[in-house]
């Protein structure tokens, strides 16, 4: 207890959802209700029953501790309560029950660019954002040059931020936040914005923060980042703490949850589908060589395909779909980009497209594999959609011996299990050993 910088005990957060009236609706309704049935209104003020309010516990009985210098990941499905937990730790909202003790200065990064004003220049926004995040003016001045060089926007420092591209905006915002020096850093899903390069930079910076001995609490859907960065992880599900411990173990538990494993996912209602007006995701399927959806496992020797179906809403866009594959431990196996000559630089016409990527047989190792699909421009990295762990499939092994295993009877380690071509030649008939043997 004494070396814990964060102690959370029996934390709970309840929200009240009014069914008929949303909060902030107006005095008119209060007055209306009072006028229409004065006695009923008076009585309902006294008891909660007549109010038709539903209670919703976003967090239930959460208890855990974080020690100095730990990097803890918080994972879970959408709606599990991760952001609520961070908001409470950041003192943005109060807990309903429970108690938290925190030792040390806390800085929270719940959103990239909080407080940025589009009319102000980059320079002005650095000061504004820094102050909002808790840095003093002296501190910001001191770190100003570092922040500017980290964000790589020197040329545009004095133009209004509303003229920045989304990439520049996010780089600047993260640059300011990255130079906070709190004892405890809380980060919520900031890796979800920005291109791959930005995400790498973010992760790199967070790693260096962690190495200086600071405590970091990190929420992300990017399981690869969690296992890379965090020593410990906590799994939340529907408001309760389901698992806690070594990051890889908890990530495995999360990924292997039965409801997370399915071989096909589709978005028939395109207005709800991931993407933007240019490209929208329609479906992702794991397929076998005749094009049908994979039902259970795929043999380790057989090729397996990932079919991405998407609609292009604006003609003239140029982009490339891509595929990320992670294994059951959350380790990324590869990122593969669709580089077909016919399509990669061709402006697309409106319509529905399918792109299928074939993973050769005798390549992946056995186990569950998780597919994430993305679609972006190759030059500017503008991201149209990026759906993480959207489908999954199992690679299984039968006893027949013509896989990379051969006759080997042990377990073959490794993230992949390729069948490589080996070439052996007998170089000479003389063995050096025979020549130097004593007579």
């Amino acid at each position, binding site marked *: 207890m004494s070396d814990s910088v964060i102690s959370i005990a029996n934390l709970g957060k309840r*929200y009240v959802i009014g069914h008929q009236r949303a*909060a*902030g*609706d*107006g*005095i*008119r309704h*209060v007055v209306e209700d009072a006028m229409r049935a004065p006695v009923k209104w008076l009585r309902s003020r006294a008891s909660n029953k007549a109010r038709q309010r539903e209670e919703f516990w976003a967090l239930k009985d959460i208890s855990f501790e974080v020690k100095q210098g730990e990097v803890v990941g918080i994972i879970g499905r959408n709606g599990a309560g991760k952001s609520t937990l961070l*908001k*409470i*730790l*950041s*003192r*943005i*909202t*109060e*807990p*309903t*029950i*429970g*108690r*938290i*003790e*925190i*030792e*040390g*200065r*806390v800085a*929270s990064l*719940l*959103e990239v660019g*909080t*407080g940025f*004003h589009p*009319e*102000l220049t980059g320079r*002005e926004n650095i*000061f*504004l954002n820094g*102050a*909002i*995040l*808790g840095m*003093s*003016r002296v501190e910001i001045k001191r770190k100003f040059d570092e922040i500017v060089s980290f964000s790589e926007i020197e040329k545009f420092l004095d133009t*209004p931020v509303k003229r920045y591209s989304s990439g520049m905006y996010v780089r600047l915002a993260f640059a300011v936040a990255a130079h906070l020096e709190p*004892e405890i850093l809380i980060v919520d899903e900031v890796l979800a914005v920005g291109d791959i390069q930005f995400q790498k930079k973010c992760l790199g910076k967070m790693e260096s923060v962690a190495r200086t001995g600071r405590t970091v609490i990190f929420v992300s859907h990017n399981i690869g980042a969690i296992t890379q960065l965090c020593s410990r992880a906590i799994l939340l599900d529907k408001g309760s703490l389901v698992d806690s411990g070594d990051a890889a173990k908890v990530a495995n538990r999360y990924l292997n949850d039965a409801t997370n494993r399915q071989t096909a996912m589709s978005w028939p209602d395109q207005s709800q589908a991931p993407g933007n007006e240019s490209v929208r995701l329609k479906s992702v399927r794991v397929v076998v060589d005749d094009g049908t959806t994979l039902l259970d496992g795929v043999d380790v020797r057989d090729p397996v395909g990932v079919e991405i179906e998407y609609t292009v809403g604006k003609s003239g866009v140029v982009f490339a779909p891509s595929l990320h594959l992670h294994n059951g431990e959350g380790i990324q196996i590869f990122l593969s980009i669709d580089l077909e000559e016919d399509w990669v630089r061709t402006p697309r016409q409106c319509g529905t497209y399918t792109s299928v990527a074939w993973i050769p047989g005798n390549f992946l190792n056995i186990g569950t594999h998780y597919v994430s699909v993305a679609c972006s421009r190759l030059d500017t990295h503008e991201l149209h959609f990026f759906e993480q762990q959207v489908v999954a499939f199992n690679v299984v092994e039968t006893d027949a011996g013509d896989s990379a295993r051969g006759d080997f009877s042990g377990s073959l380690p490794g993230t992949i299990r390729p069948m490589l071509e080996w070439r052996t030649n007998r170089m000479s008939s003389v063995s050096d050993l025979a020549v130097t043997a004593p007579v």
Partner: protein
Amino acid sequence: MDRLIIEAGRTESVYWADLWRYRELFYFLAWRDILVRYKQTVVGVAWSLIRPLLTMLVLAVVFGKFGKMPSGGVPYPLLVFCGILPWQFFSTALTESGNSLVNNSNLISKVYFPRLIVPASSVITSFVDFLISAVFLVVLMMWYRFMPPANIMFIPFFVLLAFAASFAISLWVAALMVEYRDFRFIVPFVVQFGLYISPVGFASSVVPEKYRLLYSLNPMVGIIDGFRWCVLGGQYQIYWPGLALSMAVTTVVAITGIWYFRKTERTFADVI
């Protein structure tokens, strides 16, 4: 190392320490609002002068020329401007800080800092406008070759009182606005109404003696009277019971305002 305890209902002692720790934010938020306000307008800073000038012209003509209200020997525009100065401070402060929490909802739902800073910085922004307009008052006095009396040195007291009254009421409005968005419409109406009810376009001596005390329930009455006494002197006496009442009303509103604001503050992020 500071040990922080987060629990339902417990924020008191840390809050005031935090207000001091986050004191630079008062400046930064006000700076931001002022900067943004003048960034893309051609008229820019001049707007702080044009607005009171035009209001003064309209009121002077309506109440002075047409209404033929008494001015106690002082040029009517000067009389009116002395009332406009504190009134515009109050009305802009009320309007802006009333909306301040809602307008800064993105900050309130994503970052921690004592929320009291938000309406306070709006009042500070309006105060800057006030200072700019006050320059014009000096110009006006030079134009009329009017020498202010010795009372002028009490002006800071009345400025402070205006600040307090603005802040006090804006706390209530800002906190109420989060839950009940109707105040978006109520506040401009009250401000418009207040312009004619308060002694801006006329001297409060016009109000019959027996209603004077009741009239002073409006804190701006005492403040505007005080301004006139400081700048114009002469016929303009302070109605002391009225001033006392104005100060009492301001204090009560301020204390209850802080209480209500702190009480509802913990739900801002959930409701906003």
